[in-house]
């Protein structure tokens, strides 16, 4: 094929992940009247916000070729802590949660990097631990942020223009993550570790630091997401995270980031998140039979990943 054509194709595959989002939007706006109404779009943004942050952070672990099965548990843990202590200390709690995130993430990172254990196992085990903390702090299912404290959490429901404040927050986080990924040497070395850890090591890069930083980032983002969920649900919910981990990983992959590591972008991830959120609420608005929901989502997921997968990695072995 000619250079021009090659270029075109390159271009197409590069932005395919955007196209699939548009596709979803169009399809649902046809089948579900009112899907494009301001109210429902605001819903989608509001829904997507915490997941954006969670998945954004998780991406970095995927870049290293690892995986974090504990993200959900960290969300539960921080959600509970926030929900319980916000009454005492107000919004400052968010900063404390970020601190907690650093601790949790770094613990995962250190165990993985220094003991050279597969992150799959490490996170699988440590999550029990965060879940445990969440559960003993909140044994009866959920603790509500008392009505008289609602003023503290009001800002989350505010809309700036037509955009929910939390969504703007998420966008800000994604932006920061993008800068971290693109313009810091930790970001670069995280990708390098994912691409060829041994070569990176011999190039004199501190790969342990890189790996740990990835986990820390993920920890922080999970914590932030957890806090946001507490704000959103105005309560501490120790089980909130259980279903989130895989959703987050799925949306990372849906954006086209390679699970093998070394390639990807938080921008892709955020599109992935928006797509998944759009699909779920779109299905609700179509009034799809709940019995079929899982099936439909599964099919859409496969289709979308097919479209989006980062074609530059084509020559890689897919595992």
């Amino acid at each position, binding site marked *: 094929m000619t250079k021009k054509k090659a270029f075109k194709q390159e271009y197409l595959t590069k932005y395919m992940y955007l196209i699939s989002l548009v596709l979803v939007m169009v399809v649902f706006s046809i089948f579900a009247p009112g899907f494009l109404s301001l109210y429902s779009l605001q819903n989608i943004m509001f829904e997507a916000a915490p997941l954006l942050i969670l998945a954004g952070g998780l991406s970095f672990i995927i870049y290293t070729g690892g995986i974090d099965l504990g993200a959900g548990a960290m969300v539960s843990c921080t959600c509970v802590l926030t929900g319980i202590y916000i009454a005492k200390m107000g919004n400052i709690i968010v900063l404390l949660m970020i601190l907690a995130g650093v601790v949790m993430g770094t613990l995962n990172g250190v165990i993985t990097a220094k003991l050279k254990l597969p992150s799959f196992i490490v996170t699988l085990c440590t999550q029990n631990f965060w879940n445990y903390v969440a559960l003993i702090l909140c044994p009866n299912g959920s603790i509500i942020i008392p009505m008289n404290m609602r003023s503290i959490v009001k800002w989350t429901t505010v809309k700036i223009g037509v955009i929910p404040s939390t969504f703007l927050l998420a966008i800000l986080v994604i932006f920061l993550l993008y800068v971290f990924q693109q313009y810091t*040497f930790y970001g*670069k*070395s995280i*990708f*390098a570790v994912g691409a060829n850890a041994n*070569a990176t090591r*011999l190039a*004199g890069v*501190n790969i342990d630091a890189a790996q740990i930083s990835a986990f820390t980032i993920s920890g922080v983002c999970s914590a932030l997401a957890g806090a946001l969920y507490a704000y959103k649900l105005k309560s501490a919910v120790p089980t909130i995270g259980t279903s989130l981990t895989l959703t987050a990983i799925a949306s990372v992959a849906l954006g086209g980031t390679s699970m093998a590591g070394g390639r990807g972008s938080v921008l892709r991830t955020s599109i992935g998140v928006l797509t998944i959120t759009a699909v779920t609420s779109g299905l609700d608005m179509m009034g799809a039979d709940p019995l079929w929901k899982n099936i439909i989502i599964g099919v859409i997921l496969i289709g979308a990943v097919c479209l989006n997968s980062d074609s530059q990695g084509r020559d890689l072995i897919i595992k």
Partner: protein
Amino acid sequence: MGELLFEAKGIGKDYGATTVLHDIDMKISSGEIIGLIGENGAGKSTLMKIISGVEKQSFGTMTLRGKPYSANTILEANHHGIGMVFQEQSLVGNLTVAQNIYLNREKKYSTAGFVSWRKMNVDAKKAIARLGLDLDTSKKVRDLDFATRQMIEIAKVLDVVEETASGKAIILLDEPTTVLSNEEIDKLFENMRNVAARGNAIIFISHRLDEVLKITDRIYVFKDGAETAEMPTKGADINILYEKMVGRSTTGEFYVEHKQTVPTDEVVMSVKDLSVFGSFNHISFDLHKGEVLGLCGVEGSGKESICAVLVGDEAPTSGEIVINGKNQNFANPYQARKKGILGVPKERRSEGMIGILSLEDNILISHLDGLTKRGLLNGKKTRAIADEWIKKAGIKCTSAEERINQLSGGNAQKVIFARALESGCRILILNHPTRGVDVGSKEEIYSLVRDMTAAGNSIILLGDTLDECIGLSSRCIVLRDGLITGSFECQVGNKPSQKNIVEKMM
């Protein structure tokens, strides 16, 4: 010379718009060993791939033993009695020698789908015996050393093709000697002759012209996808071949000796009584500013291990590495780099290139922390630096965004060099810097080395060949069995002869 086995007429290959191989004719008769030389990207590998069934030719025809021949898969080629030994080892570590040799050919030994490993081992022993090898074939390949693996690799292919075409097989060897030590190479050559004597034909690809001249009967020279010469080995010599390959005649200044610097007395690193248990003992030497210190020795003489220690990849058992007055003890290459030592690793693909990343990232990876300002990198600046290196090192690529694993071996190696230079390290450990690199790139790399020393850097060199080691170094240390057996000054003009160094090596 035996009957004509194989003939290719007007073979060509193009990918999309670009033609990488055009109008190649080749004749192979039974019992001959054919040399195939040319720079990387000259089309050798492409032709090999076409013959061995990895790829399909775009034009031209091939005939095998008089019948038209074409293969869509390696397997098909094997059934026609054509087998290729690939450059990157294609053995499976967690299988035994026998299982590797008969991988995907288990039928012969299986009853009702269940394989008898015992029977297989018996045959495997025979197969490797053909190459004068004798070892327990139920051993896992993982536990064998590189050279032995290479031999098994060849034994495997040999077995495949001889089984189908006894005495009429064609075997393609792509750079088989790069990982072998001298005596192993001699052993290999001997075996090659035996194989040929049985009527098989061998195509031998190597960048080491001396080897080609030593073993082959006939030589094909490729350049830019075309066949520039076809000559009998007797009567050919390095200069002729070199000229045909690169189109310009070789300068006697192959190692750019006119640029060789005279090291100052300033000691940048002194190694004191360094030992790694079982690899080398009591190694002591000083490295001076602007010096190229060559380490000579056969495989297993401990030179590799010394490198590993110096770049922080291996922990010494005892001894000191003193840099500006302090004893340094590196836990990992990162710390070594921080102290100004960086290595250019031996295995380019697995240890050097960060395959799916861009050239820019590959060049800058060792210096990113240095380029960071207030925690951030300046995209424009980094790109500028990358482009500058691409120009300086003469890296052929579309842009700094291109992925490194899309480059040819030589260019990739230049990128790794650029990385080492960019890192700002003052001491560079070059481990087989020109392994598997074509003559053209070699020369460029040599001049890069000279530039480094001119800039006041110091280099420890493990030459790909002894000749290279002598040519580049300003001083050579010779190792045998992990001990220093000699040290030679190599000023321009009175370089020691290979002979007296080899004496110390063996």
